[in-house]
Structures are given as structure tokens and as C-alpha cells.
């Protein structure tokens, strides 16, 4: 095993250790630790990714060099490493850009606890992506949920606490279903490691035994993860939680938390069920249908709202719909499209929320679109970032959203029964996306009397410029990204 193959384990370990370390540090030091650790994870994963681009393969790493069931394993191919790279980059950039806001909003003396949550969240996200064991994934799902809840209520006001409890209850319902599905799989196959479970399940599927239990187990597992990633109709907590929480927790919740559950689901589909059995899976039809509804309902709700944070929340609901539609097609092309949309949406949403923070700051912290009039002139970089993000989500050519939609449409065309649903939903959703994003972009670029040019902090400017750059660089590198995702999914 090459030296680089140790990196994922090192990343999980340092993020977790730094989380513990943050509990005894002062706020600023904890911030530095968080940024340092996030970028270290980014660089380590990037190095591994470069190695895997040259030589696509899969590694299984035994922690402590004990085989299962005594030890625990992580496994990673190009797809997992790509996602980990993006998520660590997003975490680092968001942490940098929102530093000022965190120190302003969080009770003095408790900032280090906030960074503790960020580190633990990154750690659990990475562990979810890399794990090779079903029960470990359950444990890290719960850690991720608790961190996400902690972030939503970080401001400690009565409204955020009320939003958090709804989020927590929804998440617990999801993890309950996931837990029982794992236990039933263990009962049926006698294994918890993904390759072993996959082997037994494919034998059972081939022999036609235990059809009903397998359908129920996979249904419970998919629905559990769908609830946790806020697929329609389980999205009701999202708008309120996003409206009240700080933008930093919104970016992370929408870019990392929800996406890590979907990455886990894709990993389970490719490694446990196998691409050849995927098309026969009935639960995919449920995910597909809810995904289609989410694409349209999310966009309609966004169009009806006047609150920018709620609009971005509804837009996330619609994007989660896109991802589940792509997964619901049950083909390799569908999974590749899902992978690409996850990557592009993670980067775009974190940029949009960061830009939204900047626009709100120059408009007396108002969340209503009407008050944001002219804000793009007062905070230029935030205006540019918001416009690029908006056009990306609409699906403007030369931006990553277009490639995502194109991949989804081409994957949809290959599936004759679902083709028209995909194409019509894509058309309606794109139209609605255009309507609500162009409305906001027009308002923020309409001149108003307030003309003071706001001076952003340097960290905010640097981080946001990087986010813009990364978002613009997806399209020139899209062929490499798509081939990485493809090779990752095929290896799995």
C-alpha cells in the first residue's frame, strides 16, 4: 500500500483530535486550529486524489492492522476522495469567511465550542464518506446530527432552539430507520462490512430468496437517509432552521451534512447492492418520485417567498430533489450525475450563503429581498458571488450547474420509462429557478440612495474570492471530475 493511502485515516484522526483540543483552547486559537486542520485535510486528500487519477484503484485500510470484526476498516476509491477533498475545502473556506460573524454572534468565551463542533462535523463527514462498516456509519451519522443541531442553535436564542428541536426530531426518525435496517442486514447476512454484506446480498438476490425482507431493508435504509438529507416531504424543518440559524451553519448544513448522507447512500448502492442489481430496486422509484416533486415544489416555494435565507433553503430542497432523481434512475450515468450535482451544489451553496451574509450586512441585517436593493453596489464582491451562484443554479452555460443538469438530462434519456418525467421536471424547475434568482439579482443590482461602500474584512474577501474561483474552475476541469466520479463508481 502506498504512503498516500494512509491520508484518509490521518484526516479523520486529526479532525477528531483537534475537536477535543478546541475544548481547552481560547476562541481565536480554536479558529486557527479549525482552519489549519481543514486545509491540511484538503491538501492530503488532494494529493491522494492526484495519485488516484493516475492510477484509479480502491484501497482498504485496516485501522490498527486488525482484521474485522476485531478492528475497523475504511475504504476509498476516487469518488470518496474527491468528495472528501471538496468537503474539507468548503469547511476551510467557510470557516475563514465567517470568522468575524462567529465572534460577533456567539456568546463571548464560547467560540471555542463552536469550532469544536466544526471539527467534529468535518471528522464525522469524512468518516461517513470513508467507512467500510455499516455500524460505524450509524455512529458517525449520529455524531454528524448532533454537531449540525449544535450549529443551528449556536446563537442560543429562543427561535433557534425551537428550530433545532424540530430538526433533531426529524433526524432521529431518520437514524432510527437506518439503525433498524442495519440490524436487519446483520441478521440476514451475518456481516457488517460492506463487501461481505454485498457478497451475501448478491447471492440472495440471485437465488430469489428473502425477496420481501431485502426490499424492506433497502427501503428502510434509503428512506432513513432520505429523511436525514431533507428530501421532500421530510423537508419541513429546513426553511425555519435556515431562516433563524447563522449563515455559517446553513452553508455547512447544506454543503456538508446533507450531502454526506447522500454520498453514503451512493456508496451503499454501489458497494452493497451493486450496479447490476440497482435497476431492479423498487425503492428507487419512491426516491425518484419524491425527487421529482421536490424539484418542483422546492422551486415554487422559493418563488413565493420574500426572505432570501428561506429562498436559498427552498433552493437546497429542490437541488436535493435533483440528486435523488439522478439516483432514482438506477443507472451508472444517473449516479455520476448525482455525484457531479453533489459536488457542484456544495460549492455553489456555500458561496451563495457567504455572499448572502455580505449582502445582508450592508442592508441593516435584513433578510427581505426588498431591503437588499442596491446591496451589490455596497458590497461588490458579495454581489458578484451571488450573481455567479444564482446563474450557476439556473443552469447558465459555462457554469457548473449547466453541466449538472446536462448530465441529469442525458442520464434521464437513457431510461425510457422515466425520460419524460425527468425532462419535464428539469424544464419547469429551471424556469422557476431562473424566475426567483433573476428577481433577486435584479433587486440587488438596482441602484438605491444608500451609497456607502462597505469594507469587508480581508479574510472574507480572500475566502469569497477563492470560492468564486473554485466555482468557475469546475467547468474547465469538468471532464476530469466526471471521469474521476465514473471510475470511482465503477470500482465500487
Amino acid at each position, binding site marked *: 500500500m502506498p504512503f498516500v493511502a494512509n491520508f484518509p485515516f490521518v484526516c479523520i484522526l486529526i479532525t477528531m483530535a483537534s475537536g477535543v483540543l478546541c475544548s481547552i483552547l481560547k476562541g481565536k486559537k480554536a479558529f486557527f486550529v479549525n482552519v489549519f486542520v481543514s486545509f491540511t485535510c484538503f491538501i492530503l486528500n488532494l494529493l491522494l486524489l492526484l495519485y488516484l487519477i493516475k492510477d484509479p484503484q480502491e484501497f482498504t485500510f485496516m485501522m490498527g492492522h486488525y482484521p474485522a*470484526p476485531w478492528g475497523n476498516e475504511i475504504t476509498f476509491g476516487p469518488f470518496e476522495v474527491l468528495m472528501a477533498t471538496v468537503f474539507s475545502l468548503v469547511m476551510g473556506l467557510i470557516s475563514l469567511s465567517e470568522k468575524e460573524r462567529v465572534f460577533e454572534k456567539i456568546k463571548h468565551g464560547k467560540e471555542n465550542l463552536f469550532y469544536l463542533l466544526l471539527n467534529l462535523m468535518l471528522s464525522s463527514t469524512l468518516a461517513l464518506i470513508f467507512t467500510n462498516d455499516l*455500524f460505524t456509519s*450509524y*455512529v458517525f451519522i*449520529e455524531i454528524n*446530527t*448532533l454537531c449540525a*443541531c449544535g450549529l443551528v*442553535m449556536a446563537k442560543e436564542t*429562543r*427561535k433557534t*432552539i*425551537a*428550530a*433545532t*428541536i*424540530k430538526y*433533531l*426530531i426529524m433526524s*432521529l*426518525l431518520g437514524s*432510527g*430507520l437506518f*439503525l*433498524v435496517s442495519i*440490524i436487519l442486514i*446483520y*441478521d440476514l447476512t451475518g456481516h*457488517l462490512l460492506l463487501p461481505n454484506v454485498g457478497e451475501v446480498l448478491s447471492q440472495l438476490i440471485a437465488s430469489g430468496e428473502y425477496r420481501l425482507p431485502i426490499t424492506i431493508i433497502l427501503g428502510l435504509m434509503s428512506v432513513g437517509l432520505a429523511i436525514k438529507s431533507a428530501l421532500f416531504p421530510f423537508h419541513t424543518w429546513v426553511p*425555519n432552521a435556515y431562516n433563524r440559524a447563522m449563515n455559517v451553519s446553513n452553508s455547512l448544513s447544506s454543503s456538508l451534512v446533507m450531502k454526506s448522507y447522500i454520498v453514503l447512500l451512493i456508496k451503499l448502492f454501489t458497494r452493497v447492492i451493486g450496479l447490476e442489481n440497482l435497476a431492479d430496486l423498487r425503492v428507487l422509484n419512491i426516491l425518484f418520485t419524491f425527487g421529482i416533486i421536490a424539484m418542483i415544489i422546492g422551486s415554487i416555494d422559493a418563488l413565493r417567498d420574500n426572505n432570501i435565507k428561506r429562498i436559498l433553503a427552498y433552493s437546497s430542497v429542490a437541488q436535493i430533489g435533483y440528486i435523488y432523481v439522478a439516483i432514482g434512475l438506477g443507472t451508472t450515468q444517473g449516479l455520476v450525475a448525482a455525484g457531479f450535482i453533489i459536488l457542484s451544489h456544495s460549492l455553489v451553496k456555500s458561496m451563495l450563503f457567504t455572499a448572502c451574509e455580505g449582502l445582508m450586512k450592508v442592508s441593516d441585517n435584513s433578510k427581505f429581498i426588498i431591503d437588499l436593493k442596491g446591496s451589490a453596489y455596497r458590497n461588490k464582491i458579495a454581489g458578484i458571488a451571488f450573481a455567479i451562484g444564482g446563474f450557476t443554479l439556473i443552469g447558465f452555460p459555462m457554469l457548473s450547474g449547466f453541466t449538472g443538469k446536462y448530465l441529469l438530462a442525458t442520464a434521464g434519456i437513457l431510461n425510457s420509462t422515466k425520460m419524460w418525467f425527468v425532462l419535464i421536471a428539469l424544464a419547469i424547475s429551471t424556469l422557476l429557478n431562473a424566475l426567483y434568482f433573476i428577481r433577486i439579482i435584479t433587486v440587488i443590482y438596482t441602484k438605491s440612495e444608500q451609497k456607502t461602500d462597505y469594507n469587508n474584512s480581508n479574510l472574507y474577501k480572500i475566502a469569497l474570492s477563492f470560492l468564486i474561483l473554485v466555482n468557475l474552475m469546475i467547468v474547465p476541469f469538468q471532464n476530469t471530475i466526471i471521469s474521476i466520479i465514473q471510475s470511482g463508481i465503477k470500482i465500487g
Partner: protein
Amino acid sequence: MGPNLLSNYYETVAMILFGIGFTNLFLQQNLIKKVIGLNIMDGAAYLFLAAKGYIESAKAPIIVDGITDASLYINPIPSGLVLTGIVVSVSVTAVALALIQKLYREYGTLNLDEILTQSIKEG
């Protein structure tokens, strides 16, 4: 199906309990009862696991008097999973209860509907 349900009575009871817990967590309006539902649900899952690992007339997997014959001991893995699971559900319950306590101080009620209506009115 009938005899199977009776001979696997541990699993049957566990699934019924899971249903009760899940319904409580989902439908109860009282937050404390929701947390009780959560614990019933998790407890049922652990009961199911523990029942799977149990072997009639075998002993706890601790080597006594140097006897290493695996057939004399129960399967230790489900027990390990149950212990891990308990740690997870205890932490989740602790966080949920702490949140509920804060909510009660702020809103003076444990009814989730009332809390959400009040918080929506506040904007």
C-alpha cells in the same frame, strides 16, 4: 407465519416495540413523551440485536478456566454493537433533554405544536 412469530418471540416483541417507539417519536406532541418514544425505539433495536447474538445454554464471552471452545460462548459482536448503540442513544437523549429544558424555560410549555406556533408568530 404464525408459528414463526411465536418461536421468534424476541424479534416479534422487538419489532412491535420499535413500532410503538417510532410512532411516539413521530406523533406525540409532548416533547418528553417524544424522547421516551426515542428510547423505546432504540431499546427495541438493541433487544433485537441482543436476541440475535444469544445462543441457548451458552455463556457470556469471557474466558474462564482456560476454556477456549467458541461453541460454549454466545456471539460477542451483537453485545458489542448494543453497547456502542447505547452510548449513542444516551448522548442523543442527553442533548434532546437539554434542549427541551431550554425550550420549557423560554416558552413555558412542552407541547411542540404550541412552541412552533409561538415561534412562527414571532417571525
